[in-house]
């Protein structure tokens, strides 16, 4: 960076701008979250001023919402889908992208495959969902395992695109050296290439996590059994049952938001850089 070399012209920070941005962030971004939190801690009789702090904290809202929405089960379903999807997506999609990228130049087959996957990025899920639901129920895949499997398969276009851009920048000399040393192609991939792709694995993991954890449409159309529901879907299903008990409803929202917000506090830096490199390549 040349920054150090040149004189800093504007050394004094702009305090007015800082204040404006801070006020917007506090009122617009944190305001609704603050509201959600205080309502979740209140008693229904304490709702005269929704934004005031609770007169006494009613923790039972959380235990009641937990029981009502079968939170532990929904959490485990969502957790299973998310983790299994991340692990298998990284393993299989990186392997497929590697085979495609390294053979595109010499083989027409792999080149066609590359464009096949890339062009599938133009087909949104909403477009295939009607026939897919018929197919999935015919295969009896309308459950947690089925949807996890579909996430792994459907991530392929985007991940091929991301991994391929990364693999192109890895010099082939390393692989050639490994081949001369007698490594099989699979060994070359797992011992040489796979560890080198760590930054891209992180990006793919973060994007997959955000997709599966917050997805609503796929669980909505694919999961028919209440036992298989995810956190997001359960919120939608229970919306009617909360009726006007806002305290219970908000306790339930807070329970769903808490895991991602905690993740964000701890891994904020990685999440931000993962999302940027996923979009900008």
């Amino acid at each position, binding site marked *: 960076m*040349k920054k150090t070399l040149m004189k800093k*012209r*504007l050394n*004094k*920070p702009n*305090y007015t701008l*800082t204040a*404006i*941005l801070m006020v917007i*962030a506090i009122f*617009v971004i*944190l305001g609704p*979250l603050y*509201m959600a939190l205080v*309502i979740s801690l209140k008693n229904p009789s304490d709702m005269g001023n*929704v934004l005031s702090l609770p007169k006494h904290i009613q923790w039972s809202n959380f235990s009641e919402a937990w029981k009502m929405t079968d939170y532990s089960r929904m959490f485990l379903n969502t957790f299973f889908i998310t983790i299994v999807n991340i692990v298998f997506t990284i393993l299989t999609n990186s*392997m*497929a992208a590697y*085979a*495609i990228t390294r053979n595109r130049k010499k083989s027409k087959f*792999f080149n066609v495959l590359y464009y*096949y*996957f890339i062009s*599938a990025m*133009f087909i*949104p899920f*909403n*477009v*295939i*969902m*009607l*026939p*897919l639901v*018929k*197919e999935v129920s015919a295969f009896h895949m309308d459950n947690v395992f089925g949807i996890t499997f*579909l996430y792994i*398969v*459907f991530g*392929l276009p985007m991940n091929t695109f991301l991994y391929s851009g990364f693999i192109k920048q890895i010099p082939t000399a390393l692989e050639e050296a490994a081949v001369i040393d007698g490594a*099989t*192609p699979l060994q070359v*991939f797992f011992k040489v290439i796979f560890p080198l792709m760590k930054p891209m694995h992180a990006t793919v993991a973060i994007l997959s996590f955000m997709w599966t954890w*917050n*997805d*609503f*449409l796929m669980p909505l*159309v694919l999961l028919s059994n209440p036992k298989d529901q995810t956190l*997001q879907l359960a*919120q*939608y299903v229970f919306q009617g049952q909360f009726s006007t008990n*806002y305290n219970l409803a908000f306790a339930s929202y807070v329970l*769903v938001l808490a895991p*991602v*917000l905690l993740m*964000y506090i701890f891994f*904020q830096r990685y999440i931000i850089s993962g*999302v*940027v490199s996923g*979009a*900008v390549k």
Partner: protein
Amino acid sequence: MERLKKKRDITPYLMVLPLAILFFIFHTVPFLRGVFYSFTDWPGYGGWHFVGLRNYLYMFSNSQISQAYWFTFKFALFATIFVNAISLALAVGLNANIKYKKVLRALYFLPYMMGMLIVGFIFNFIFGTMIPNFGKALDWSSISTNILGTDHAWVGILIVTIWQGMAFNILIYLSGLQSVDDEIYEAALIDGTTPWKRFWKITFPLIAPFFTINLVLSVKGYLMVFDQIMAMTSGGPGNSTTSISVLIYTQGFQSSQFAIQSANAVVLFIIVAAISLLQLNILNKREERLQ
């Protein structure tokens, strides 16, 4: 080496074929089946007949479907403009010489972490209970009713979309602004240009690729708007906030309009694909000209 190359290695095929076949079965086959059924009268069960373009013609004559298209286009246009204009302005602010830069960036990105459905529920309460109560207390009739129950329901959905959509767009613009070399500003400052001119003449052309990314992703995403509508209005009041995706979901699964909604899905696909390609082309050309 020569010998190694001659022996045809099947490993690369094994690495990609299982996944490619599964992708074909679970992604391409449903897509092709959807296209196929759009030319039939299949209600989702039982037998079917070919009906040619009847479903597509029906789409044009059906007021519910044309209303969904009108709403979706209007929504996508306004959401794209507002989200990008506000995000760009905030990103420029966040890139300036300010205090607590990292904290502010983290705060503005926070809504991205939250699922659109829950965000929709939270704003449901804000629009439906909090603001009307506030309006009644102040005796201010224009905000005493739930906006989601009026003709302006779509504005409520727009506000929620902006609230959540800003996060991602700000982040992308910010990473674009950070890639601009400070020396360019030094030169511009010496030339004595105004900040406004400096932004449009120097900064904006340099971050044009980031503008392209945001625009394409925004339009694509907002044309498929679904979660926030299901959370807030379920498409109402009447059909006024029924988007194309909501219509495919409600009518395709719940009434026996499987074939008609398949045609609807095909049209949505063509529009999304065409707009994305067009945008990429136009914006790439403009970027070339600007640079």
